[in-house]
């Protein structure tokens, strides 16, 4: 801060004790950068004065709205407490500014909404949760109706976005899904190897890897990767379109946003996720096979021979059969959260996070339900 940016207040009367009339001389630049200390000085002086304050403003070199506000506030305080205040010698342009400030002056009413008590908070939270669940159900219903309608009239199905989504959500996810699944198979075989070796049951490594990967791990792993990769992208894309009013524009053009944005994503994911799961099966079994050969001396032929016996078709199908359900969950939750975005950039981020958390949660929940049902059906 340079010297000329600092504002000063000089008390000309002896102000050691309370007195009737105080003369004050203002100098320097009364601008936003220089008045921070003046606020308290003015308050101190104002407390001293009993009857009248005379401000000499002739030496003020610059005045901006903040400085003018400070003067105006002092004037108002004096008038409210019934004391007298006069300002002399202000330059004409500064007087004009003071008048403008007086004209615009309002008491700031930035009221903080009081924090609700715990009962109200619980109530509000439950209401929001219920509201969210019913909104989600309504959304699923709406999607189902539009899906049925487009099956009745297949010419309405939009193939281009479906193929585009197949590529982005399916094909482009191959490397990461394959890599992680391979590592998962590798790790399972590694952990199992010691135990099996102890019983001399080396060959059962194929059962261990095959069943755990095909039935449970690769559908789940693939769904979680896709939820993080594509579910979040759906929420962010639709959310941003909501902020820029593109969704409203679609409605006014007469194109249903669900038909254009949700169905292609959901159909593409329902096709892509089972395929990705099969790919994950292959990669995971391959990882287990490598580990079996290096640690348990089970060769590829023997492993594959055993795998055919150990894994029945129904085991493979239960794994792959879960994938379309997971796909529908991921696509619906991602798109629904996208539509929940309000007007701000903040809300895009929040709903994207929520979409990933909810879809992973629901995928695991659905997986648990599948286990119970399959067990009951003895598959």
């Amino acid at each position: 801060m340079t010297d000329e940016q600092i504002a000063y207040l000089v008390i000309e009367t002896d102000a050691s004790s309370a007195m009737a009339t105080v003369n004050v001389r203002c100098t320097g630049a009364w601008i936003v950068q220089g008045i921070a200390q003046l606020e308290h000085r003015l308050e101190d002086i104002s407390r001293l004065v009993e009857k009248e304050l005379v401000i000499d403003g002739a030496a003020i070199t610059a005045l901006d709205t903040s400085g003018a506000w400070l003067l105006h506030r002092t004037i108002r305080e004096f008038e409210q407490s019934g004391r007298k205040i006069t300002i002399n010698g202000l330059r004409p342009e500064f007087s004009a500014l003071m008048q403008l400030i007086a004209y615009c002056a309002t008491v700031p009413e930035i009221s903080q909404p009081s924090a609700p008590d715990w009962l109200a908070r619980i109530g509000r939270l439950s209401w929001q949760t219920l509201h969210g669940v019913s909104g989600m159900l309504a959304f699923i219903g709406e999607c189902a109706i539009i899906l049925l309608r487009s099956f009745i009239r297949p010419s309405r199905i939009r193939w281009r976005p479906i193929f585009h989504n197949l590529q982005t959500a399916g094909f482009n996810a191959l490397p990461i899904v394959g890599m992680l699944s391979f590592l998962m198979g590798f790790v399972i075989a590694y952990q199992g190897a010691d135990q099996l070796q102890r019983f001399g049951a080396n060959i059962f490594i194929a059962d261990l890897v095959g069943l755990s990967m095909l039935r449970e791990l690769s559908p789940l792993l693939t769904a979680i990767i896709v939820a993080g990769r594509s579910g979040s992208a759906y929420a962010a894309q639709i959310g941003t379109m909501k902020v820029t009013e593109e969704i409203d524009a679609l409605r006014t053009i007469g194109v249903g946003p669900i038909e254009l944005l949700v169905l292609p994503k959901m159909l593409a994911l329902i096709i892509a996720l089972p395929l990705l799961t099969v790919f994950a099966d292959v990669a995971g079994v391959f990882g287990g096979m490598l580990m079996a050969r290096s640690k348990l001396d089970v060769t590829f032929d023997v492993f594959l021979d055993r795998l055919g016996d150990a894994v029945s078709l129904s085991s493979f199908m239960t794994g792959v059969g879960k994938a379309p359900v997971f796909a529908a969950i991921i696509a619906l939750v991602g798109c629904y959260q996208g539509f929940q975005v309000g007007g701000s950039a903040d809300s895009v981020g929040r709903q994207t996070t929520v979409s990933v958390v909810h879809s992973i949660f629901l995928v695991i929940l659905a997986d648990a339900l599948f286990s119970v049902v399959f067990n009951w059906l003895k598959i």
Partner: protein
Amino acid sequence: MSATMESTQKAVIDIRALNSRFGNNVVHDNVSLTVRPGEIFALVGGSGCGKSTMLRTIILLQQPVSGSIRVFDREVIGLNDEEALPLRRRWGVMFERGALFSSLTVAENVSMVLREHTQLSTRLIDEVVALKVALTGLPADAGSKYPSELSGGMRKRAALARAIALDPELLFLDEPTAGLDPLSASGIDELVRSLRDALGLTIMMVTHDLDLLWRSADRVAVLGEGHILGVGTMTELSRSDHPIIREYFYGPRGRAAQEQAWKKK
């Protein structure tokens, strides 16, 4: 403004031989311009003629190919963010679509600037924010609203309140009336003039609004084909015989705006 004043007062913005281009597309070809203290200077021209690019170049959001831009007698081209800070505190910018922070209320949008750059007490900041909100003609309860809850005109006013938060000496307005109804637009006209008169600001604006030009602008520069086609008051420009300028001012809308301005006088 007379010629003597021009020679005695230093230009607020002094652009010399500015060249900028996007790829092979030349936007500015040796453009020179000066903006004098205390004037309302408007930059006009057809869509895509480089008005907004020039504004963005002056406020250091874009780098030109060559040339010199002096603001408050300091060269701005090539400044890094740290060196530019003292300059940036002396100017305020209002963007075309407001660019208000959507997760903050209007009052928070304005107070953020004050909290960041001054040492004022919280109470004084709140009061100054309320004052700025009132100065731009917003109702008192607008301060606690979020930008998404405001109408287009109110959003512009809120953006203006944030632009003048630090009492800048220089104010850049990008399309201050675009997308507003005539009533709100003429409100902005008056606001711009009264701010200049009350606070002694220098204002540089980019606009298409002929009414705003006739009623508020002291001097106008017409940009076209990468050059300055003409600089002067609206009356001077309306006498120009350059075909593009004539088309601009004597199209049906141009004439209507001129008649309006005469009636007002």
